[in-house]
């Protein structure tokens, strides 16, 4: 049998893999197998991730709920499941509850505690003020949002900041 990739050499390697949750088989010649990384001595952690994510999502999601399309990019939950890739930043809000089980299975039940974007200072009445983020009202709004999002580490951090500012 000829190699299914180059269609020139005799196939000697039989590859069984999962692509986007679908089982697939290939017959490859040694050169193509090497080129495609199928002779790697390590299991491939990421190339088939789409498949892994797809299957996570299907397992976690017997039924879709809420919005059917993302307003910004038009993705449906099915699109995300198929590719294992999220369509845009808005999708994370639109499909938040559908995506959470997958995110938890990758990272654990946790919330972000690292860097946040730096927001440029804007001068208002000759007084530097942050566009958002550092004023007391903004912090209180963020606290409310953090509690809603069940991001308690962040909420505690904000609570301390507010206390400090009010003191």
């Amino acid at each position, binding site marked *: 049998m000829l190699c299914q990739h180059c269609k020139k050499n005799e196939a000697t390697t039989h590859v069984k893999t999962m692509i986007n949750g679908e089982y697939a088989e290939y017959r490859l010649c040694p050169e193509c197998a*090497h080129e495609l*990384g199928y*002779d*790697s*001595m*390590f299991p*491939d*952690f*990421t*190339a088939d*991730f789409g498949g892994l*994510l797809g299957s996570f999502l299907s397992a976690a999601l017997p039924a879709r709920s809420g919005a059917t399309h993302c307003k*910004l*990019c*038009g*993705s449906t939950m099915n699109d995300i499941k198929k*590719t*294992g*890739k*999220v*369509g*845009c*930043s808005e999708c*994370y*809000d639109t499909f938040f509850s559908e*995506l959470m089980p*997958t*995110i938890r299975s*990758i*990272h*654990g039940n*946790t*919330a*972000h*505690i*690292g*860097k*946040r*974007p*730096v*927001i*440029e200072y804007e001068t208002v009445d000759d007084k530097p003020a942050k566009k958002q983020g550092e004023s007391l009202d903004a912090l209180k709004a*963020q606290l409310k*949002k*953090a509690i809603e*999002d*069940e*991001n308690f580490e*962040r909420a505690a951090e904000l609570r301390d900041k507010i206390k400090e500012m009010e003191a």
Partner: protein
Amino acid sequence: MSEAVVSTRVRLARNLKEYPFPIRLSADRAKEIVEKIDAALKDCGIRFHRIDLGAVSETMKVALLERHLISPDFVRGQEGRAVFLSDDNSISIMVNEEDHIRLQVIRDGFEPDEAYEIADKLDSELSKKLDFAYHEKLGYLTQCPTNLGTGMRASVMLHLPALEITGAVHRIGSNLSKLGLTIRGLYGESTKPVGAFFQLSNQVTLGISEKAAIANLKNITTQLISQEMKARENLLSKIEVEDKIARALGVLKTALVIDHSEAMSLLSLVRLGVASKKLSTLSTDSIDRLIVEIQPATIMTKYGEDMTPQERDIKRADMIRERFN
């Protein structure tokens, strides 16, 4: 550390809020993003050189990959993909790879803190000009949920010949994933280790700060190196191994034609010999530089893109002989 650590890389994944991620991005909007980032980089204090992937040869792209300036996926460069490189190639910014921005800093040796510091500073500059997609709970939003949170991947390129020869690398690989780390081949995702060079990187990005992830990487790297050193001591007490290393140097000094994989295996042995003070020839740093220069596409971009594989193997042997003699 230099006995086993070749280089360190830190990369940050960022996306612009108002655009779909690359998977759902039209070519026109992708080009808009390239221009936006180009403009934002203009006054960030560092000079960048822009390469539009659609406008360069296949060989050129592979040469960028060989130097870890772009990813394997990015080689399939279509319109609307570009990479910005700093003058010394220590910073590369891939635009519209898996995310809108993949900012990467490479340093020689074991310098994760320094690499992160540079990446962090540039990222802060960019975030003043570009509206990054960010979520209170999920951190920086990325196309693939595996990168959510910090969007940071810190990695060290390690030379682990003794752990490879003894087969210990396999066992270590499965233990590492429990510690939130991954070990991969030379060119990253889904590639085969070449010449016992491996990349160790953090896997988890959500719920761990950049500093903590780097501290973890440093800690595990140190442990891995001490295991490698123990294995080397054991290995090098055998005359057969020392003989193999000495012969490797002999071949490198005299060969007239040498393919990439043979050269890598021999250089790997010689590097081991030098690092263990069994050989006195080039320093490990010079060997590491040579390893970069003798890669197929890197040779071709320097000496002619129409070279045949045999001409390339002859050129490679010339370069190696010249350096070692």
